[in-house]
């Protein structure tokens, strides 16, 4: 079963745990060289950050790609870099899950609620956000659902708009909820090193 295989991959990976800053930080190293890092809140067990990194074809290490959590705020010094970069007034897209649902927040979207339309495209396994004024468009998949190969259901999807932020939610199905609970139990079993600088064995 697909749900099983993802948790198997997780079990096979080398894991290092660290408790720091009121957060449980876990680093996974997968057999194919990919790396994943997660951060959980110690008190609520909520997933705060999940990010990925892998080697490019030529062997260079790529930047961390954030799946869940706030995007890294780049320091101001990089502003005068030589290449191209999105202006800060553009919409910022991020995933931020709650206990019962996947949630995406798009900040800096000042248009009224009628402008947006959010729909599931089951054939392409993704969610599409459109704007009738042609200012914003985003097509994204739900990585958790893809890993477990669960079908997308349009009835689980809803969205609201307030304070120039569009919030799209997708209710987590039963399979995901049980998987997350199992994983959390597993993670708590890993002996976490305490505060301070420690060598990350998997890196």
């Amino acid at each position: 079963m697909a749900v099983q295989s993802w948790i198997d991959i997780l079990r096979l990976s080398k894991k290092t745990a660290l408790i720091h800053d009121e957060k449980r930080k876990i680093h996974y190293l997968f057999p194919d060289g990919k790396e994943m890092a997660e951060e959980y809140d110690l008190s609520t067990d909520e997933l705060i950050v999940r990010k990925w990194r892998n080697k490019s074809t030529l062997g260079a290490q790529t930047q961390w790609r954030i799946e869940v959590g706030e995007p890294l705020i780049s320091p101001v010094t990089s502003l005068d870099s030589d290449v191209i970069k999105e202006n800060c007034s553009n919409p910022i897209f991020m995933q931020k899950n709650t206990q019962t649902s996947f949630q995406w927040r798009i900040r800096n979207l000042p248009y009224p609620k009628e402008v947006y339309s959010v729909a599931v495209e089951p054939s392409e396994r993704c969610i599409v956000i459109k704007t009738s004024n042609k200012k914003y468009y985003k097509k994204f998949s739900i990585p958790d659902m893809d890993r477990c190969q669960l079908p997308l259901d349009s009835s689980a999807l809803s969205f609201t708009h307030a304070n120039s932020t569009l919030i799209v939610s997708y209710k987590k199905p039963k399979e995901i909820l049980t998987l997350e609970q199992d994983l959390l139990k597993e993670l708590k079993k890993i002996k976490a090193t305490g505060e301070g600088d420690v060598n990350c064995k998997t890196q």
Partner: protein
Amino acid sequence: MATTKVPEVRDITRIERIGAHSHIRGLGLDDALEPRQVSQGMVGQLASRRAAGVILEMIKDGHIAGRAVLIAGQPGTGKTAIAMGIAQSLGPDTPFTALAGSEIFSLEMSKTEALSQAFRKAIGVRIKEETEIIEGEVVEIQIDRPATGTGAKVGKLTLKTTEMETIYDLGNKMIDSLSKEKVQAGDVITIDKATGKITKLGRSFTRARDYDAMGAQTQFVQCPEGELQKRKEVVHTVSLHEIDVINSRTQGFLALFSGDTGEIKSEVREQINAKVCEWREEGKAEIIPGVLFIDEVHMLDMECFSFLNRALESDLSPVLIMATNRGITRIRGTNYQSPHGIPIDLLDRLLIIATSPYTEKETRQILKIRCEEEDVELSEEAHTVLTRIGMETSLRYAIQLISTAGLVCRKRKGTEVQVDDIKRVYSLFLDEARSSQYMKEYQDSFLFNETQTASMDTS
């Protein structure tokens, strides 16, 4: 004149400087590899151009590795021009690395390391890689130059697709390349996000009604759909050296302390060779052997030559082209004399192309081409005089006189260089023979004249 100097906003495309060989556009051969008398900036030297054409075909085929060619001839007979011609006809995808023999002597790097880096720069690997690109129609470009004329420029670029619109902040390099590509509102462009490379796809159909003056080759394309940022598989060519550098860089925060390249460990190289061979077998990558051109090859010493012997035997080695203007001379680093200053065992592995001095007619032709390149008009008599100078002194000296004479002519508000202008610059600037003559006559009044060693040691 008391006009205040206004800082000129210079267009980047106009700063194309004219180099010694910028008139060379190819080898000037027809389809049957027969050399044309005058073509693509090349004049005369028929046999050696033909030979270079054969070598070129061998390089293009790409099956033969580790062949070496030596272009030998007197100074000013077009050795470097032939090498440049080969480079030009190879096209942008085949790596061509040029270096001078003395470039490899450095305190930071051993000679053989510098040579192996040069060898690996000349081997290209064509591989598919996923990159992030931005593809959209330009809505607006706004570039703010600081009022003082100096300092960083600030730019904004608005791009759109049929579905969305995004504003981007531009860095200095980006602004430069946008103005170099002459990107304007209504163009459909792609930008490689990692490298900043801009490709113009054409003009948007919605702008087709604008009655702009545009070239016949302007293409109209649809405005892209969907998201602006896409991940796309692109095929690009990187050199083995670039892969080496990527993989040898110290990871993490240690990268801050170690220098950029320096020497590359041989284990890293071996790993990469193995990986590239693996990719090739899987069909993921293609190896493009390029050309390594070493000018003034007599400047290499014995160790380098024996390194070359060995390096040429590897199957991952490029075609090596060397040029020298020496006759029988001492091999650097030894006390032995050898033709071209190259050991006999290496000479034995080379195909040697000889260049011969130009005839008067050819010299005339070359000077004409250079005049066009340097945008100087020459009268018929001045051309004849200059050709004589070229024959009697050297071609290089005659070429130098072109732009100087052009300046003299412009100063007297003439449009065409006359014999008098040539005479004037000829008297202003000495050629090598006259300078030597002068030295002989007035040697006593120069400094350090008491050292009377007859000949200078050149090697």
